[in-house]
């Protein structure tokens, strides 16, 4: 019995090791990590075109509050979003929103190009795709706009929220279309 127990334990250890290895060889993606409020958020690096110093933003009346306006980034005029406001994150220590968001992440896909305000220079992190916890229950209970969260990445002590920009933009599109329909 003892013997059997021992082998089982070794097997388990082996299996675990194999598992770790599998994880290592799994598909890896690089994320751009940025802070919103006190939490860390991430976007896949291939969606980020560049990080620039936030240019002067032209305010645009009659748009949702989290759209800060439009700015000139390398000759193209793009909308600048404040995801802290979009997600309803309280600005605790900051009293002036515009002055502290020094950097803008330029996020680009086939259908849109927007700027996302961030306070600090974002850094990168390489993770395994399997590390992304997609179907997590806690998202539903959070105050965040759940439709825009792709999943949560656990990396050691850190817990990083992966933002789904495409869905965020689509949701925005629908909202404004509905709003427009209501007006008419």
């Amino acid at each position, binding site marked *: 019995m003892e013997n059997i127990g021992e082998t089982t334990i070794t097997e388990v250890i082996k299996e675990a090791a194999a598992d770790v290895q599998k994880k290592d060889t799994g598909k890896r993606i690089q994320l751009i990590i940025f802070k919103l409020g006190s939490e860390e958020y991430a976007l896949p690096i291939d969606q980020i075109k560049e990080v620039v110093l936030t240019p002067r933003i032209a305010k645009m009346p009659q748009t949702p509050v989290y759209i800060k306006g439009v700015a000139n980034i390398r000759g*193209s*005029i793009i909308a600048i979003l404040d995801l802290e406001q979009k997600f309803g994150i309280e600005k605790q220590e900051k009293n002036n929103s515009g002055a502290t968001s020094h950097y803008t992440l330029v996020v680009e896909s086939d259908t849109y190009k927007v700027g996302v305000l961030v306070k600090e220079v974002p850094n990168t992190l390489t993770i395994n795709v399997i590390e992304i916890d997609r179907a997590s229950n806690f998202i539903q209970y959070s105050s965040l706009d759940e439709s825009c969260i792709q999943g949560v990445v656990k990396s050691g002590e850190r817990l990083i929220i992966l933002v789904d920009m495409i869905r965020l933009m689509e949701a925005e599109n629908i909202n404004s279309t509905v709003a427009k329909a209501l007006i008419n």
Partner: protein
Amino acid sequence: MGKEQEYIEIFLAEAQESHEKLNLLFTELERDNTSRKAIDAIFRITHTLKGNAMGMGFSEIAEMSHVMEDVFNEVKNGKLVLDAELFSSLFRANDILGELIEAITSAKQVKYKGIKTKLEVVLRNHRQNITSEAAQEGLETIETVKSDDPVIVQENHNSTGGELVLALEDLEETQLSKVTISDTVQVPVRKLDALLNIVGELIIEKDSLIAKYTEIGHKASEFARLHRIASDLQYGVMDVRLVQIGFLFNKFHRVLRDVASIENKKVDLILEGTEIEIDRNVLRIMSDSLVHMVRNSVSHGIEKPAKRLEKGKPEHGKVVLRGRNEKDTIYIEIEDDGAGIDTAVIKRKALEKKIISEEYAKVITNDEILLLIFEPGFSNAEEVTEVSGRGVGMDVVKRATESIGGKVEIFTTIGKGTRFVLTLPSSMAVKGALLFELDKQEFAIPLTYTEAVVSLRKKDLHKYGKGLVTSYLGKSISLVFLKDLFALPNLASIGLEGALHKSYDDLPAEAKLDVVIVSYAERFMGIVVDKLLQQKEIVEKNLNNPVDKNDLFCGATILGNGNVCLVLDIVAVLRTFYMEKMRRQNVAA
């Protein structure tokens, strides 16, 4: 350059390109004679070329590409195998095709029947093989084919298809293939757009550079050369995008004929100013609208022949399509000598359709009545006809025109006819704009919509209902503080109590106000801004998702200082205000 010549030039450019492509594809196919992609492409190209050539009346090219198409149809279906011999024939055929295309301009005689027949023979032989038909029948077919070709007539009687092919080969080997390069380059509009965008940025950079250097004491004249080169470049690129308006106008002969025959009317189309040049994109956007308007002119404007005679007019009605330009503005006029627009009828219709209220109908002016035909859902025709549709026409015309910063006007005299005037920018890239400041930020209003700039005092303004009024040239016009408008959550909420009085109430009595009088389609309005800046040429860019649905702005531009300047959508603002006015009157009624 004549229109015919222009079409030929386009055909030539296309045909030459097809020819080059075929050469490439044949070479590719020779390397790998099973390449599905190449076979399909050749089939498609020859087919298109055949169609185009037939349309232009170049029967030789049509015949040649037709037989090549046939060969490739067989190849495509996997029935005919491409071997070295067939390839050499095909290359030869393509060379001849190239010569034929060239012969359009050089008027040179090209012998093409030989190679054409050769391919036909290959086809026949091949078909014979698969259908296993009697040799005799096959021979007959060959004979019929050959009889129209004098070159090979004597070989006709005693040789089989195979020998014939050889004989023909000798005959044609004497001609050498040549490389031709077309004199025109086809450029996708997308590339031109990109180029124009870059030029736009150059202009912005130039302005910002000049602005910076003049600040530190340099003279603007030091940059005259840069200025001139940049603007030459800009106009050069814009010029490439221009097409003659006649290009579009010529298509209307057919449109008019069709409508006239359905409506049993006799109408002549007269084209004027076909040589005026206009940006291709402007023309593309306006083409559907023009079709609508020409149809309308015939359907609603021109009377039936009997009625015309009765009125002492010539039996044939007249529709004039006229292009003219004034500086950077293009006017397209659609004029008919028909019945004119009866405002009484329009008014009655608008009332029936509840587009206007009874109250409003009492005070409405004739000019305002005419504008009603641009309202969505309005169709003036007594009954809906096959041609004029269901009132989708004129509001679409108006929207298309506005979308590119133009406007539509109507001039009509009962019994004499109607004239629609479309005022369009010659280019969509650059437009004049008036810049102003509000809340330390720059905004622009397109000059097309600015009527005047005036300075007013608070005492010139009066509260009127929920809004404000002032007088301009003896007329009372609505006035709005842009600040108040911007403070609203959306344009639809301008009806909110007191929203438009806020800035007025806060204003000290002696304050002086900068007011821009804007107008569109006989509707005037004053817009109060913080500070007027300057008049400037701007390169307007579209707003992208997620801010493209904003009602207040139609675009944005980048200023010399690198700042983004939003362009106010005057048409939308005016429309909202007047909708509100109509609604109020409806409620009152």
